[in-house]
């Protein structure tokens, strides 16, 4: 068995344990605790009143914009990770190629800033 194999073996075992462990006390609580549901108790919380309307209310688009921003920045930084790992072996001009990458990224951010996409309205 190679080194990487036993590493990922540990990871998978650990993730399995990590999923089971938090579930154990929940099951225990279900057994130990009372369980007497009734219609009034099960109502969703709404400051002591009847739930008004549908709970699927409309939300600000702004939340979504930040999600989109994050997606693109995420991919870009993933591209940078191999570059960062190889950084110590690189000549200066190779570092500049990475910096061009970062500058393009910054350019996008500056454009959106100017456009007002980063404002919370």
């Amino acid at each position, binding site marked *: 068995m190679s080194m990487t194999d036993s590493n990922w073996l540990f*990871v998978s075992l650990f993730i399995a344990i990590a999923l089971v462990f938090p579930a154990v006390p929940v099951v225990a*609580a279900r057994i130990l605790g*009372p369980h007497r549901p009734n219609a009034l108790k099960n109502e969703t*919380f709404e400051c002591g009143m009847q739930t008004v309307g549908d709970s699927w209310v409309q939300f600000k688009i702004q939340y979504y914009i*930040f999600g989109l921003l994050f997606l693109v920045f995420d991919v870009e*930084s993933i591209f940078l990770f191999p570059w*960062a790992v190889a*950084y110590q072996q690189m000549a200066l001009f190779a570092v500049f190629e990475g910096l061009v990458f970062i500058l393009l990224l*910054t350019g996008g951010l500056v454009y959106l*800033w100017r456009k007002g996409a980063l404002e919370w309205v």
Partner: protein
Amino acid sequence: MPEFSFGNIAVYAYDMIGWVLVSYGLDPKLVVIIQKFLAAFLLANFALLTPIFTIWLERKIAARFQDRLGPNRVGPYGLFQSFADILKLLTKEIITPSGADKVVYFVGPILSVAPVLGIWVVIPFASTMIGANLNVGVLYSVAIGGIGTLAIMMGGWASNNKYALLGAFRAASQLVSYEVPLILALLIPTMLAGSMGMQDIVLAQGTWFVVYAPIAAAIFLVSSLAEIGRAPFDILEAESEIVAGYHVEYSGFLFAIWQLGEFLHAFTISALVSVLFLGGWRGPLADLYPILGIVYLLAKTYFVYFITMWIRATVPRIRIDQMNNLNWKFLVPLALAALVLVALVDKLLPASLAGSARAWAHFASNVVLMAIVFGMLRTESRRLQNLSAPAPVAAAH
């Protein structure tokens, strides 16, 4: 038979179990699985039981910050308060709200703890002790941490409640936003160590990376605080605005699981900061006696944890627009600038300059950048003050 050494006692025990099982005639491959399982079991227990202590610690310290006593009834100094709480929570009813999506409702909190626990896989406790020395360790911690966002959205959606869904939206927006400076800050230790493996990063820290890159360390700490979603970044569960956010409908132990996830996360990011920027298990004699490494790591972790508690107890909650401005208009550009700075400075410094002298050269460049940034902030705030000064008079009728 493995050779005994006190300094390396954990590895000795690990090898010994394997040796005994193999000598009983078990298949070596199966023995490896058993060994790994036992190690994983122990590690998970350690990580999951720590919050029982840190919750007490946090309540005690927060109380001191606010000039109170904190828990002091159950046991000496209230030490057993957490156990009393666990017993209470175990006997509480778990209410499932009507219209909830049952399976998703139950899986949500569990999925919020599991990824945080999963980060402990890559945290090196000593030169010989690490769950899995993945060569993509840094990215692994980000990847598995990102699942927590999903858990919060699941919990918020499944509750069938307006406030919960609003909280989930805020949470998702905040957590994904702050992941960007977090990842960018992580690039800097990766670059300095030339590897993404956590063990390699610790080994590269002859001088702690907090000296090489104080800005990156600060950005990492702040964006991690936002990832946990506790004060001052607790707008996702702001009591005064949206009740309790995504876990408003949760009761009993399911609620406790959400809280457990939050406390464990706080402790975990403290450990990550210590590993990435404070030298991890490094310290006097830690190479000779790996068991000391655990002590050093825990000491550093508790130190960082104390700082997070300090911030939590003193800084008021920020508004949602401030939260976004802080991230996209300050932390992200600053992280990009710090990245460029470190990349350039490290290549331009002569190779002969090694060790701590190199580190302090980096430190000086960071200080210069920080001075420039503070200068810019100062002029900007002056400008804003001049703009907004007459406004109240004009608005009055």
